[in-house]
């Protein structure tokens, strides 16, 4: 590969040093007893509107976002813009459902989705299903963040060694262990400011250099500029695009790391305000998706100095290559640091969320039922290390170019927890065993369908003489919900006198 870019590397290392210091110093920020799980894992639920904005924004709009969405635009064109309807559809859900969930979790001291399901349905096996789904879907997602980091390290000209990745990983592990959720929250502020600067610079400077947006889009192959118009009797690309956006939106907030960040807010009101404020990040994401087209128009894939990068990272190298091509070295350092730190923030939150899940809903439920609060917090800290180590091992086995599809597979699993969680926030009507069966069938069917399509997100459903390709997660959610409803009706009909366990009451769900 090309030589090391020392100026960019220096800026990169400097900014990494800054956030490392910040990560450790964060232990004393809004100080709490870090030997309590809700202090380590939820930062004491004390973040107001602004910190929640940075934290949730830094959490949901990950390094994957900044690498893979533009990479998809670069490689496949218009379809990559599904990220925009996706983020538009997600905020009504945040506004309506999650303040209710926040209230009930606050009232009962729930830290995870598993805690809520355990309390709401009194069924440890349903809670276990939700927990395992969360952990299993989170692992590849953490690995995906490390892939993002790998790409920018490669872009700095460092090749042939995994040492930088391991160093970054050790830093991440250490400050997460020490400071818990306070670390990513404080780092998110720096990371988000860097990302906004980078995105704005990219969408202003690069189009000027390339002769304007009109010229850039003239360089996009005609068939990639828009979605293909569906043939008669087919929903075609339209169906795939809309269900991909909607399904992704429905799954996003169910992820453990989303819930962890949301539950660390200080009130339901802070969450509702953020539903109106977080689209700021969506706008940036949409603009960054355009950067994929800029890379296409700039022809970076054909420049000899980037050949090795593209060979190693595929289309994921498009954005780093464009930045190297368009920006002075010092700013490349800033931009790459933004992406690199952008990987650490969600990776930290994800490992905390997975650790909370394991501790609360597996260890304390099935192994040691009465730990002291200190033991509980200590265990979670250790598990967060194990989870990250697992993710590091994981990326050795995952081809980088499938990064975005792998995340979509996690989405298929995650969406299966929607009936228990989201509907559970509104009503206890669904039977817990019916939910468990629906979850199992949805998970199995979704995985099988995805594998049958080589892990591509869209499944070519045929109904009569209609072709309805759509996002597998969305279709299997319908199956899951259908089973849960039918079985609930059947079980209700079978047993006249049913005892329903539910430790929550209606007033727990709002202020």
């Amino acid at each position, binding site marked *: 590969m090309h030589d090391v870019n020392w100026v960019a590397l220096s800026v990169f290392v400097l900014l990494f040093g800054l956030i490392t210091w910040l990560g450790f110093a964060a232990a004393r920020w809004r100080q709490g007893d870090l030997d309590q799980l809700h202090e380590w894992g939820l930062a004491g639920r004390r973040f107001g509107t602004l910190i929640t904005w940075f934290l949730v924004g830094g959490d949901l709009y990950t390094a994957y976002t900044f690498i893979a969405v533009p990479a998809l635009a670069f490689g496949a064109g218009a379809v990559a813009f599904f990220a925009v309807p996706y983020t538009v559809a997600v*905020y009504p859900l945040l506004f*309506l459902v999650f303040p209710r969930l926040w209230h009930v979790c606050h009232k009962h001291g729930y830290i995870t989705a598993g805690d809520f399901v355990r309390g709401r349905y009194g069924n440890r096996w349903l809670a276990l299903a939700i927990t395992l789904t969360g952990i299993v879907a989170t692992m590849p997602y953490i690995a995906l963040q490390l892939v993002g980091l790998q790409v920018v390290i490669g872009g700095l000209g460092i090749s042939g060694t995994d040492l930088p990745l391991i160093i970054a990983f050790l830093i991440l592990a250490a400050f997460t262990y020490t400071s818990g959720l306070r670390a990513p929250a404080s780092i998110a502020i720096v990371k988000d400011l860097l990302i906004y600067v980078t995105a704005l610079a990219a969408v202003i400077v690069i189009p000027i250099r390339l002769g304007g947006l009109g010229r850039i889009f003239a360089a996009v192959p005609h068939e990639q500029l828009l979605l293909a118009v569906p043939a008669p009797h087919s929903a075609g690309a339209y169906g795939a695009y809309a269900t991909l956006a909607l399904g992704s939106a429905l799954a996003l907030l169910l992820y453990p790391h989303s819930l962890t960040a949301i539950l660390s807010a200080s009130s339901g009101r802070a969450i509702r305000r953020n539903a109106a404020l977080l*689209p700021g990040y969506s706008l940036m994401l*949409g603009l960054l998706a355009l950067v994929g087209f800029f890379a296409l128009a700039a022809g970076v894939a054909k420049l000899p100095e980037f050949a090795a990068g593209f060979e190693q990272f595929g289309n994921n190298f498009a954005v780093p290559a464009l930045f190297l091509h368009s920006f002075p070295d010092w700013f490349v350092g800033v931009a790459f640091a933004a992406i690199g730190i952008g990987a650490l923030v969600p990776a930290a939150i994800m490992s905390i969320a997975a650790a909370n899940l394991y501790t609360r809903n597996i260890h304390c439920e099935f192994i040691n039922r009465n730990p002291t609060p200190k033991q509980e917090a200590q265990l979670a800290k250790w598990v967060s290390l194990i989870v990250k180590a697992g993710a590091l091992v994981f990326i050795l086995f995952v081809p980088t170019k499938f990064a975005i599809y792998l995340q979509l597979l996690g989405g298929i699993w995650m969406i299966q927890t929607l009936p228990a969680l989201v509907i559970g926030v509104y009503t206890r009507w669904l039977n817990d065993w019916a939910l468990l069966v629906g979850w199992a069938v949805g998970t199995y069917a979704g995985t099988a369908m995805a594998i049958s399509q080589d892990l591509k997100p869209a499944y070519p459903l045929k109904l009569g003489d209609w072709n309805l390709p759509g996002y597998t997660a969305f279709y299997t959610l319908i199956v899951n919900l259908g089973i849960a409803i039918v079985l609930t009706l059947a079980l209700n009909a079978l047993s006249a006198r049913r005892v329903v366990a539910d430790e929550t009451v209606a007033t727990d769900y709002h202020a």
Partner: protein
Amino acid sequence: MSNTEAKRGERSTWSWWYLLFLIQFAAVLWPPLYNRAEPALLGLPFFYWYQLACIVVAAVITALIYLITES
């Protein structure tokens, strides 16, 4: 159970204003509405600038709903 079921009055948390959310869903989840290149804005095809604009519109709608329902 029947006791909590009876108390499950959702009226205190439901508002008809929430139906405004349907506007943003419909606007972005129906691709035939916007899958075309013209009219372009500053060289950006309609497909792209329309969806970017929807983000802003959705944020404004959400803010309105927040302000109305919070008071």
